[in-house]
Every structure is written in structure tokens, then in C-alpha cells.
């Protein structure tokens, strides 16, 4: 599936909850529990994302021309948000990731309810994911 198709899938998933905030957050928490976890050896301070009140570790690798992300967080709702981001972005090419619009973030009616500490963290997270993709692209050009 393309990034946009996955985004649409998530939007539909969250639309089912309507105004039920509990349902939305329970779903997010559940997603957090299934986050593709970062390998222990990569859970280091240099992989911490800045701007978040909770800790978020993010790692990426290039596999068959696709960027694959793994992550972890010490807060479960944050983990759910990270899981959503990874579901959308991970496993795509560098160009697809760099150009991703990520319109689903506003559409799921979730992010506007998050505290600025969380949304700042989210912005940093997206920035880091795109920067990783850009770095792999640059490396390829150099090689």
C-alpha cells in the first residue's frame, strides 16, 4: 500500500469512534502495545527524539531500497502515536517518505487533543524520520 492508502485506512479506523474519546485512546494504547520495537542495542541516548516529555527512541535501516523504522517509548500513548507513524512511513522508499504529506494526522481528530508537549514531540519525530530518509538518499547519490 502507498503511504496515502495507509493514511486513509487509519482515518477510516478512527472515524468509527466518532466522539468517543475513550475508544480512540484505548485503540491508540492498543496500537502502542504492538509497536515494532527497537532492538535493545539501538535504544541509546543518541537515538532519543527531542521535544517530547516522554522518551522516544527511533532507529532506521535501509532494507531492499526501503527505509524500515523501529522505535520505543516509556509512555504508552506516545508509543501508540509512534506506532501510527511507523505504520504509515516505514517500509517505503526514501522519496516516498520525503514527499509524504501526512494529512491523516489532522484527519484522525486525535492530534489536536494532544498536549503541546506531545505534538512538539510528534513534529520532532516526523522531522527525524524524514531526515533519516534524506540521509539514505544522499548516501546513495554519493555511492
Amino acid at each position: 500500500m502507498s503511504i496515502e492508502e495507509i493514511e486513509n485506512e487509519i482515518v477510516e479506523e478512527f472515524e468509527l469512534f466518532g466522539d468517543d474519546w475513550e475508544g480512540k485512546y484505548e485503540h491508540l494504547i492498543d496500537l502502542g502495545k504492538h509497536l515494532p520495537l527497537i532492538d535493545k542495542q539501538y535504544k541509546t541516548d543518541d537515538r532519543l527524539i527531542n521535544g517530547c516529555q516522554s522518551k522516544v527512541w527511533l532507529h532506521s535501516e535501509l532494507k531492499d531500497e526501503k527505509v524500515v523504522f523501529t522505535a520505543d517509548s516509556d509512555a504508552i500513548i506516545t508509543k501508540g502515536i509512534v506506532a501510527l507513524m511507523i505504520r504509515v512511513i516505514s517500509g517505503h522508499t526514501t522519496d516516498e517518505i520525503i514527499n509524504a504529506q501526512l494529512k491523516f494526522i489532522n484527519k484522525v481528530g486525535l492530534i489536536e487533543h494532544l498536549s503541546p508537549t506531545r505534538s512538539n514531540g510528534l513534529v520532532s519525530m516526523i522531522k527525524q524520520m524524514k531526515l533519516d530518509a534524506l540521509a539514505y538518499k544522499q548516501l546513495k547519490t554519493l555511492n
Partner: protein
Amino acid sequence: MTIETIAKNSTLNIQKLRQDFPILSKKVNGKPLVYLDNGATAQKPKQVIDAISNYYQTQNANVHRGVHQLSIEITVAYENARTTVQKHLNAAFSKEIIFTSGTTESINLVANSFGKKYIKAGDEIIISEMEHHSNILPWQMLCEEKGAVLKIIPINEKGELLIDEYKKLLCGKTKIVAVTHISNTLGTINPVKEIIALAHEKNIPVLIDGAQALPHIKVDLQDLDADFYCFGAHKIFGPSGVGILYGKEKWLNEMPPYKVGGGTIKTVTFEKTEYADLPLKFEAGTPNIEGGIGLAAAIDYVNEIGLENIGAYECELLEYATKKLSAVEGLRIIGTAKEKASVISFVIEEVHPLDVGTILDKQGIAVRTGHHCTQPLMEHFGIPGTIRASLVFYNTKEEIDVLVNGIQKAIKMLK
């Protein structure tokens, strides 16, 4: 327990007082607002809002400058506000009351100005392990600039200062002590009178960070004998962007101006400037006039209720909240000092404070989560942060019940 029975138990009519605060009837996320983040900033009564609104509608002019009637009237009102602060704190003179932008600027002013004049390489500055970053960073920066050394008073597991350790730190090299009156994270009320007396035995001046103290307790500066005392208006139901530095006249006279500009001078030539007397020497530029007026209105409001009444009621609230919160499985209160204000920090086993704060917010409950600008303190307790409920006189036992139910729900969802 209903609001009526609380009102009966206490001398305050809380329900009536709550009506003074328009924001308290607001709904957040569809639920009645339960505002328990007063340690970050307190809500404003209409008496304060009206004073500020009235200033803009009928009094606006610049102070200390004009010969016209409006300017004269607002200068009198602004100086009366200074006197209101002086009387409230029982300071000896109104010229010892300097208007600043808040606690942070007050501390920066002293660190810069006192530091410039008195601190040299090898000198020592004492702060404590429970300080807010605002009472750490200005001193740390000063130490780095001057080659001075920052010494830290340690705390025990309850979150109380170890006074015996403090005594050992005081020595010939100590040039100033800067300690908080009430910890913003733990609620600990420090024995500042004793801390000051011990320093004064060695002729060392003491600065007290009173940001969290003013809304809760009566501060008598002449009784405390503090050399410097700092606070911001917004935590005592006044406007943001204005605060106070109290300094003993003898120090303020000796200290050089911190910021310079309009209003701080007697005469200026391109060769030399003679600075104004206190307090204007430290008040460069057009001040936050409405802030001063609003602060005075807030102090009048608090005094009308009476800090003794407030203290008695908050003590009751703290006891109730401590009992209720302690009964929550897996919840641990951080900060259990014997002398404590109505500030309760806690952590919950296996759940992150940020997650709890998010779920509480969805239920209309405003708390603070995180390190509360006291990272060294978090390190001491080995935790990433806490959830903090900071209560003032307009909070009720019913709201504490809502908080406890909210926490139970958060735990159920998050675990």
C-alpha cells in the same frame, strides 16, 4: 462531601468565592473544569480582571513622566500598588520593592547585579537540591562567568532540606545563599527563617524564591530578615508578566543597575550617567503598569479572604487529598515533608505521568506532568517526572474526588 458541608467545616464560603473566578465555570473537553494546576499559574478573580480593564478604560498614561493629570493619577496608583506590596510583605520601605517581570527576572537581577559587584573566582554560592531551574541557572551562569563554585544543600527522602549539611556548607567563601520558600514540586515549606539566621551569623546574605509561597502563607520580611525575596504576581491570582524583587535597602543601594534605560537616571551626558535612587534605579523602561495595578488588586483580594483562613482550609484540603490519593493502588506521593503546602506530586507504578495527564485532561482535569523545571530533583528521586496537583482555596474536596476517579480510570486504560 458536598460543597455546603465544606463551607460549614471551614470559615470560608468556597462556593461563593468560586463565583469570583469566571474561568472556573468553564467546561473543558465537555466536562466541568477541575483546575489543579495552580502551582503553574493561578486563576484570576473578577476583582483583578476589573482592575486591569478599568486601568485601560479610565487610567492609561505613562508613569513617573508626565505633568498632565492622567499621568499624575496613574503614577499615584502605581506607587500605591508598590506600597500595597510593601505592607503585605511587611517590608521596611516601599523603595525596597522593585517591580520586575516575575520571579525569574527578580533572581536574574540579583545574580547579575549582586554577582557583578561581589562575586569573584573561588567564591561559593549555596542553593538547594529542590530549586526550580529559575533559581539554579542564573547562579550556575554566574559561577561559570566568575569561576565561582555552586554548592548544593541536599535533601532527605521526605523532601526536606538537611540543615546540618547546610551548616557545613556555610563558610568564609560563601557569598550568597539562594533557597526556595516552598518547593514547587514537593510542596515542602522550608525553614527559611532558620536558614537566614544561620547565614547571617556569618554575614552572608540570603535570597528567598517565594514564587510558591505567596498564595499560601503570610510572609513577614522583617521577621524573616531576608535580604532578597522574589515572587511573581500570576501565582497569587494576579496578572502574568509582573513580579517583585524585594531587596534590603543597604544591598540595593550598593548594587549596580541591571538593565538601564529610560526612568533609571538622574542625569545623563555622553561622558557619564548618574543613576536614580531606589526603586527607579532598577526599573528601566515603561513598566508593566496594569500588572502593578492588577497585583495590588490581587493582594487586596487575598487579604479580604485572609491568609489564615486560606491556610486553614488548604490544610484541610491537603489532608483530604493525601488520604484519598494514598489509597489508590500503586500510587506513591513524592514529597512527604512535615511542613507542607497544598502541592501534591505523585507517581503511579507502571504508568508514565504524561499518559496520566493526557487521560485526566480528557476528563476536564488540569494537572501538571513532567519534571516541573526541577530536573536535579527528579534525578534525586530516580523518576522521569511526576503528576502534580497543586491546590488553592477555590478547590474543593469534590474536585479531589473527581481527580481520584479520573486517576482510577487512567490506570484502568493505561495498564
